[in-house]
């Protein structure tokens, strides 16, 4: 072999090794996700998701955790370009074991009609840091924005309003007598919070210094505005400026609630939220956000147990719908399912698309009986309705499995497993029915 060839083969080996040890996943596929080239880190991240150690198609490998990848590629009409940039994918829930729930970031670049280039990254730690940073940012934001759009409300240890000031009337229209002694949930739409949740937020404020949530708020006349509500625990007045400003004397734990009307910012913040937290096809909470929110709910349960149920729904014979009417019709059915779920469950319930035709609803402060009632209501609605696609009438049914959180459930994964098993029982019993874990 000539000296030049030898050098070339050494360079080739170095180049292969460079790709081999790159701490980022690189994959090249065709338009259908069939893998041409793949580096080891991708295999490390993807193989735990694969059945029987077979990894030939990227979309198939990610089907259960990122069901809308095919949809994303298909709906990208430009001849080339970035299809998605660091899309977050939640792999599984923390099972109380060694590791945090892993979160992947996936970027997909369309090279031409036949080739996709995909970059994968494990961003679990980064997501954790970002979450903290977001809270800090929200806190600062709340402090520096002009004081006129605030309502400053002081709460007792149970979350009841215990003092009156003009800012409450200015923002919400409530009069003194209507608010004193009432829980702060009077500023929330009826089904947007629960008595448990009212206390949860106080505990969370104790633990992390504040509790913040954005969402619809109600005025005395029943109209809604998009508000940001921050609860902070009050220290004895001499130690705490906010308490001093509010003029409160403390004998037991007390809190300060600041509500801001941010209706003008709603569109912008909702767009951001939808892009990161919602499933593209159905607009429901996506898988990653479901796991994130459900973990919070489970932590609340652990601190103070109360009824908490999970329903998993799966549309019956969905493959047959796709085969018979085509994938676009299947998509319409999934969207119809999503709308019916939203119409059936409360604002404080977490309604999510977990993958494919599988949906989850987590119901805070709700026991088995009420969850079953809700699930059956949904089944009746779906069964009685007709979905119209291009003049063709499609009827479908749904099966559901319910599990209730209990002390012998180790974590979210275990709760999901129970609901899944009930779902299989419902399927085996003939579909279009709900089964409960007992």
């Amino acid at each position, binding site marked *: 072999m000539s000296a030049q060839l030898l050098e070339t083969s050494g360079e080739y*080996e170095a180049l*292969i*090794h460079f790709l081999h*040890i790159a701490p980022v996943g690189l994959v090249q596929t065709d338009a259908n996700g069939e893998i041409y*080239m793949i580096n080891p*880190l991708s295999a*490390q991240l993807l*193989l*735990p998701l694969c059945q029987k150690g077979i990894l030939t198609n990227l979309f198939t490998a990610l089907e259960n955790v990122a069901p809308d990848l095919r949809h994303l590629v298909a709906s990208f009409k430009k001849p080339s370009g970035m299809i998605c940039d660091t899309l977050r994918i939640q792999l599984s829930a923390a099972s109380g074991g060694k590791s945090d729930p892993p979160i992947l970031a996936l970027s997909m670049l369309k090279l031409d009609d036949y080739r996709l280039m995909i970059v994968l990254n494990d961003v679990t730690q980064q997501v954790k840091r970002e979450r903290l940073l977001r809270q800090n940012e929200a806190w600062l934001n709340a402090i520096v924005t002009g004081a006129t759009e605030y309502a400053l409300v002081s709460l007792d240890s149970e979350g009841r309003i215990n003092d009156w000031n003009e800012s409450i009337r200015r923002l919400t229209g409530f009069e003194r007598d209507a608010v004193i002694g009432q829980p702060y949930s009077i500023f929330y739409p009826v089904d947007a919070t629960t008595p448990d949740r009212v206390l949860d937020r106080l505990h969370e404020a104790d633990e992390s210094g504040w509790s913040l949530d954005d969402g619809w708020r109600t005025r005395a006349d029943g109209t809604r505005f998009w508000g940001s509500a921050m609860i902070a625990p009050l220290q004895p007045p001499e130690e705490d400026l906010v308490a001093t400003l509010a003029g409160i004397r403390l004998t037991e734990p007390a809190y300060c609630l600041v509500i801001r009307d941010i209706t003008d910012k709603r569109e912008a913040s909702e767009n951001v939220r939808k892009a990161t937290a919602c499933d593209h096809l159905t607009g429901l909470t996506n898988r990653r956000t479901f796991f994130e929110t459900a973990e919070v709910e489970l932590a609340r349960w652990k601190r103070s147990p109360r009824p908490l149920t999970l329903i998993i729904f799966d549309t019956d014979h969905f493959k047959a719908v796709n085969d018979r009417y085509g994938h676009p019709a299947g998509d319409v059915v999934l969207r119809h399912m999503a709308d019916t779920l939203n119409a059936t469950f409360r604002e404080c319930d977490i309604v999510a698309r977990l993958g494919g035709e599988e949906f989850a609803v987590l119901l805070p402060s709700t026991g088995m009986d009420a969850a079953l009632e809700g699930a059956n209501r949904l089944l009746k609605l779906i069964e009685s309705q007709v979905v119209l696609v291009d003049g063709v009438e499609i009827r479908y049914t749904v099966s559901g499995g319910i599990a209730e959180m209990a002390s012998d459930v180790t974590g979210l994964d275990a709760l999901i497993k129970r609901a899944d098993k009930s779902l299989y029982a419902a399927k085996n019993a003939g579909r279009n029915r709900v089964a409960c874990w007992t």
Partner: protein
Amino acid sequence: MLELMPVVFQQTGMHAALEAQDDDELDGLDFGVIGFDADGLVRRYNALESRLGGFSRERILNTHVFDAVAPCFNNYLVAGRFDSAQEESTVLDDTIDYVLTLKMRPVRVRLRLLASPNHALRYVLVQRLA
């Protein structure tokens, strides 16, 4: 002279059989062999593995198996099994189907994972599937 039976991928008593082979003999096997110590540093790397992976022995020996040699093994399916065997001081002899990315092409393989409190080296054996 006593003729030794050739070592085959699925045979029993594999761990001891590998330990009894010198490097030249490992090179004669028809499956890939990666042997690494308690610190994860690669100590044995046979000719077939070197040819399949496209890396010379010099590049691989004494580097970390999960960092520099086979990053695709660094998950609960492979590294996790070695970790648990280590923690619980148990014998590991599992065979799993897997995908390697030899020269960045996905290749289906069967892996045999070997660890034992009685042997200093752990092994990953690699057999290509058709």
